[in-house]
């Protein structure tokens, strides 16, 4: 019965195509409307309708290319993300599930494909941990090999096995659904973009990082990094045992900018070097104060 229905459906589609070519589509639609009210909505082209006579070898080739790109790091992050997410989180489980459970429904296959892929990704680390390759770039290579192995087994068993059995999800998106889905995608992308924009706004009072770190050879690493909300000008004074060593005037930093210098300090066991930072905006107030023991804190 199923085969007969399929033949009839194919014949009907062929008739519709021929009628459309002859410019009699309106007549066909009208006839459908009479017999099969309500009329079927206009459909958008669906990827599922694209015929692929040998889908698994084609998928295998795509997996091989994706593995090569993801393992070698060729291409930018966008291309690697496009290929790497399915290579890691979908395809290994998808191929293994198709090998083991060829007639699983789409929802079942989606859950099992992603779940088994996650399992394989987790276990790939255990396999590679004891090898010189280690984790990281070798993991997608291993996952790609597993996927290719499963695809090879499927091709050997039944090359005509369909890649997916759409079953109850065979309905294609109508124009209305496509518009709504597109609208939702735009709104979600907008929400994410707005959040990223909002989180990036600097709302804090602003701060300046100051440091004074002993280096080898009795030298001190002195530095400032501005996290202020506006340009600031600083005055720095370095002393050792109370005696001035060096001053830096008018160090002007834009927000996010950094300044650093190295200063030699005379050896003074038990003594202390002190750095005082003052802002031009508030010259009477010590903004940052640092001190290091010269007795043995050098790294």
């Amino acid at each position, binding site marked *: 019965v199923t085969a007969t229905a399929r033949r009839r459906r194919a014949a*009907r589609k062929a008739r519709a195509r021929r009628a459309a070519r002859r410019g009699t589509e309106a007549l066909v639609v009208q006839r459908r409307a009479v*017999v099969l*009210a309500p009329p*079927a909505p206009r459909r958008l082209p669906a990827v599922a309708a694209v015929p692929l006579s040998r889908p698994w070898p084609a998928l295998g080739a795509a997996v091989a290319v994706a593995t090569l790109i*993801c393992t070698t*790091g060729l291409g930018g992050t966008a291309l*690697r*993300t496009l290929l790497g*997410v399915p290579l*890691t*989180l979908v395809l290994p489980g998808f191929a293994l599930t198709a090998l*083991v*459970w060829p*007639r*699983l429904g789409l*929802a*079942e296959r989606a*859950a099992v494909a*992603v*779940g*088994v*892929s*996650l*399992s394989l*990704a*987790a*276990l790939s*680390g*255990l396999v590679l941990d004891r090898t010189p390759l*280690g*984790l*990281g770039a070798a*993991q997608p290579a291993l*996952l790609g090999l597993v996927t290719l192995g499963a695809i090879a087994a499927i091709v050997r068993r039944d090359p005509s096995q369909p890649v997916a059995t759409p079953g109850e999800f065979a*309905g*294609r998106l109508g124009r*209305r*659904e496509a518009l*709504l*889905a597109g609208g*939702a995608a735009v*709104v*979600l992308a907008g*929400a*994410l973009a*707005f*959040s*990223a924009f909002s989180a990036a706004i600097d709302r804090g009072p602003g*701060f300046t*990082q100051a440091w004074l*770190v002993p280096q080898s050879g009795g030298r001190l*690493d002195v530095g400032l990094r501005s996290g202020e909300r506006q340009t600031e000008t600083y005055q720095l004074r370095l002393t050792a045992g109370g005696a001035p060593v060096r001053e830096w005037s008018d160090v002007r930093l834009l927000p996010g900018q950094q300044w650093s210098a190295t200063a030699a300090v005379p050896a003074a066991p038990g003594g202390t070097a002190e750095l005082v930072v003052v802002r031009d905006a508030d010259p009477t107030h010590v903004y*940052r*104060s640092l*001190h*290091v*023991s010269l*007795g043995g*804190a050098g*790294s």
Partner: protein
Amino acid sequence: VRVQQASVATEGPRPAGGLFFPLFLVGAVGLLVVALADHLARDSSPEAEPLFWIGLLFAFVPLAVRAVGPATSRRERIACLCGLVLLLSLVKPLAQPDQLTFFDELAHWRSLIDILRTGHLFTPNPLLSISPSFPGLESATAALIGATGLPAPTAAAIVIAAARLVLVLGLFLFFELLTGTPRMGAAAAVVFMANPRFLFFDDQFAYESMALGLAALILFLEARRARADDASPLGAWALIALAVLALVVTHHVTSYALLGFVAAWALVARLLRKRGPVALAALLAGVELLWFALAGRPTLEYLQGGLQPALEQAGALLHGGVGRRLFQASNGQVADVWRQALGLASALLVVVALPLGMLRVWHTRRLQAPYLVLTLSAAAYPLSLGLHLLPDGAELANRMAEFVFVGVGAVLALVIDAIWPIGWVRRRVVTAWLSVVFSGGVIVGWPPQMTLPGPYLVGADSRSVDALGVAAASWTRERLGTGQRFAADRTNRSLLGTYGAQEPVTDYGSRVVTAQLFLSPEFDDADLAILRQGRVRYLLVDRRLSTALPLVGVYFEDGEPPVQPAGRPIPVAWLDKFDAVPGASRVYDSGDIRIYDLGALLG
């Protein structure tokens, strides 16, 4: 009739979706409102809170109600569940885009950093010592990073979203097989999503978030394998074994809970003279034992540390001790009245509905072994509510929520199916019930101060992570190198361990009570002994700790010495005392955060 038959036969595939697409658009708009609420919350606007709840309810309720409705097709239910997973998984990233800020996820991030740095597993983690023994999550994320080159927070979000999809779809398919109807499967999955931990806790980059998905997958695979012969037995077992192995190396408690459930299922099935998952229970037990022997031995100590205080407090409470006040944070802040009312109503609605569901189980499914076990686990829900009365019990109760709600979902799916066969009045009842249970669950399961982003708060985990702390931790990596031994407060310790790749020293990880260094008025010989015992070279002092009591109850870690006089924040003079210690160098100063080099004191 002929016309109708012809219509069915020749209409071809129906348009996919039904009402899913308009409702998904509504949910997406709800999420946009949540994003707007987050924006306002960052500016401390009072309008943020109502907007957040409105947006959240728009994201959850329409799709949830459609998923459990009586006239929804199976494919639409599945689409609604997938839409719900997507929308609810975006609530946390909207608050903290491209950042890992939760306490647990910072700890797991450290394990991931170590894996990416060394290329190998099992590097000791100073933030969470048990984490390297269960590296499944980090290994999967490292694979994704290796393939894509994405930054860790983005890769982490993708892995967790995938795991949550498996979790919800797996539960739906499992319950669909158990009940025989997609509707009850969807209802069980929706009730599960209303559990207090689903929105935030189970969306974080932590091992449990991934393990729950694997556990749901195993349940479905086992049920599917046992009921259909459309797979090669060996192949089906191979898939199950893969998932079991991955689960066991990912999270201890989830794998133990699954073993307990499957073993109980097998036992009850035997009592009912039916076939049970004996082989799966044996497989799980065998793999658990193997992993415990190989790497999981620290688990016992870790779990004991979490359970023991709650058990002791339960004993004290039963003997007339004083319990914890509900809806009160550790720093004394009491939740708003509406929050208390909604939280209580949520628990009450579940408790009231449970007996009805159990009655339905007895009438219709008392010969189904897994349903009986699920009903038993649902019965633990009222007990878990009692744990909220213990000072350390709320955390344990919340941690039970995911597991208990699998049973609660199974039982309450029967109630939803029974009370809403048709009619808009009953639809409204279910809509209101789901709205209250979901929103009240969020209130019970997550501190209100952490629901939305905002300015810095003392000891408030994600709300304590800000640019100042991240800048200090990043600076240590650049100027001091990695692997330096630090003592710091709870939040800055996590930042030092991740952004700074340093080695924080704690009582938990190193058996050195470094909190004592900060919680004493003077630096004395005892403090010097602590420094030397822990080989602590650097101290990070966050002077903002002196402005408030910590929201989570401790400034540094559990068991820290109390501040005297009690009930007041640390005096700032205690934090500044290191300036006067001979040999101590203040090498970094960003205003509120200072770093001291105490290398000269270590001898």
